[in-house]
């Protein structure tokens, strides 16, 4: 049993608040991803769980145990660092075995467990090399093997793939997920890459300016964001945000009219629509508006289409079939999928939920 609980955690650096009174719980066995821009406090949160950073106030629990003032080595965690943090003067074998050696495990047992973990991580042939003789991907694999060897109750990953190339990231992503699922160890993974977050997390914590904006499953974050920040941070290309004045089911923004639907909020609002919820339709259809095609980026089965509506740019994602023979500089009719429109308050970005 090793859930992770933040209870009103605050972390100050001088006058700067890196974590502002944050509370959340990550249930036992889940793979949680903390995602946010640099400086948002995501790494500080992770380091606080690991005990590498002491918190200014609040409590941190691992399982039922209050670990707020417990040293890292007594928290039963393993930490994987962004730059691998391998012991440069030790062989791969000694690196992986180090946590066991530090805990005075008998030599025979160390050897056995190192072999076992190395096999799982695909490192059998590299055991006698030094870290400098390995590629970045191999080094990170050693770091993960070192984390695995002690069988901790929590894994902490601090942007472990940001120094690796794209293909390697995808491969390693799969391997880590498979390992985590087979071991069932509660894991926290920090990244600034929302796609990585969506792909990996059972749960995602969207962090910004030292607070958790939303803590939910990837599906929920995507379809039901609590505010415009989360809506913009999750999904690629980003959600289109149209700020304007709504009256009589028409949103007016920068002199352009966008048809809305009955029940939409009136007044100054921000309407959000995801690129894949904008569709081309035959001209003159109810609820449609005119847009000029600026750019078509073909991605295989789909295409990102940049549309100009007056001075505004909207991103749309069309399927191959929708795209048809639409090409750049065409003027087309498009409509927004009405049940997918989200509304936010223009001042604080808070979601305006529709009645019923």
């Amino acid at each position, binding site marked *: 049993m090793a859930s992770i609980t933040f209870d009103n955690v605050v972390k100050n650096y001088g006058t700067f608040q890196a974590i502002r009174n944050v509370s959340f719980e990550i249930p036992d066995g889940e793979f949680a991803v903390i995602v946010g821009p640099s400086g948002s406090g995501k790494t500080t949160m992770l380091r606080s769980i*690991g*005990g*590498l950073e002491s918190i200014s106030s609040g409590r941190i629990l691992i399982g039922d145990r209050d670990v707020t003032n417990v*040293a*890292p*080595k*007594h928290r039963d*965690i*393993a*930490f994987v*660092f*962004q*730059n*691998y*943090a*391998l*012991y*440069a*003067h*030790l062989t791969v074998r000694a690196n992986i075995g*180090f*946590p066991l*050696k*530090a*805990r005075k495990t008998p030599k025979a047992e160390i050897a056995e467990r190192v072999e076992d973990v190395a096999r799982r991580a695909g490192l059998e042939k590299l055991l006698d090399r030094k870290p400098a003789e390995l590629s970045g991907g191999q080094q990170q694999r050693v770091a993960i093997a*070192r984390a695995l060897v*002690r069988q901790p109750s929590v894994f902490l990953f601090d942007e472990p793939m940001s120094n690796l190339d794209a293909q390697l990231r995808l491969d390693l992503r799969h391997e880590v997920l498979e390992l985590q699922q087979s071991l069932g160890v509660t894991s926290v993974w920090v990244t600034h890459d929302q796609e990585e977050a969506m792909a990996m997390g059972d749960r995602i914590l969207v962090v910004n300016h030292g607070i958790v904006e939303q803590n939910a499953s990837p599906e929920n974050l995507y379809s039901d964001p609590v505010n415009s920040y989360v809506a913009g941070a999750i999904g690629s290309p980003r959600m289109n945000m149209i700020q304007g004045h709504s009256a009589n089911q028409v949103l007016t923004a920068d002199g352009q009219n966008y048809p809305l639907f009955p029940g939409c909020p009136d007044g100054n609002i921000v309407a959000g629509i995801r690129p894949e919820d904008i569709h081309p339709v035959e001209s003159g259809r109810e609820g449609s508006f005119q847009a000029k095609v600026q750019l078509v980026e073909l991605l295989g089965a789909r295409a990102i289409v940049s549309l100009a509506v007056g001075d505004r740019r909207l991103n749309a994602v069309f399927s191959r079939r929708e795209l048809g023979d639409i090409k750049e500089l065409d003027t087309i009719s498009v409509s927004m999928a009405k049940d997918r429109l989200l509304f936010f308050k223009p001042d604080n970005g808070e979601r305006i939920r529709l009645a019923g």
Partner: protein
Amino acid sequence: MSQVSSQTLADASERKGLFSRLVDAFPFRWWMALPLILLLGIFVLYPLGFSFYLSLTEYKLTNRSLDFIGFEQYRRVLTDGDFTESLKITLTFVVAAVLIELVLGLVLALALQKQKFARNITRALLFTPMFLAPVAVGLVFRFLLNQQLGLLPNALAVFGWQVDFFSPNMALWSMVLIDVWQWTPFMVLLMLSGLESMPKSPFEAARVDGASFFLTFRTLTLPMLAPVLIVALVIRVLESSKLFEYVFVITNGGPGGTTESLQFIMYQTGIRFFRLAEASAMAFVFLLVLAVPIIWMLRQAKET
């Protein structure tokens, strides 16, 4: 691309006159180095060569014979008890002083690295001794350690401890003490910068892994610090083997020759007794003795 250009260059040089051929043979970048080469030649290479030549003669300031006598001076120096005794004294001093400075410097550097409060002022104060002239330091200690006047012997006497810092048994160790006082800060400075330039995350990984201080020190700190340690050692061995000022202003080689360092007897032989040839021979023997460990250490540095 490069083939084409070298081809055209070769064609061009065939048509050139004497001046441009000279320019080709001695390109401009060499001329740029000429002033330095000249200075080195005049102030380093020539004196070095000349003193080596002197060591092969009978040259004295009182009898300026430049007659070549081969390695006679070297034979004399090596069979002369004074020189070998002095070599022993100097090596004892170097080994003791540098070892103490190394260990003390490392301990202090590790402590200073952890310090959070009043960092800069502590460091500034700790580093002051090495900014003082060794002659001044020697004079200060001459009085500080003086058996009648000195603060330290008087302070020790309060506890019933009579110490004569410049007795035959103690004098060399007092020199070591002074050197340690003056030059440990240098070790601290080098090691501290070495420690502070180390990546932090392996140490954090070791904290999470539960490594004790000694395990972390052995597997992380020491190997990563090794290149700095070796450079510090090389510099201090070279510097401390030039022990002269403390001896000159405090003991003048005494008592009973127990602090006659090599530099000191070379100075005496050459400048006091005018036997420049013999002093030169001593210098070259010492150079050889020093070169062996220094080259070995630099090799080690390259490997790490």
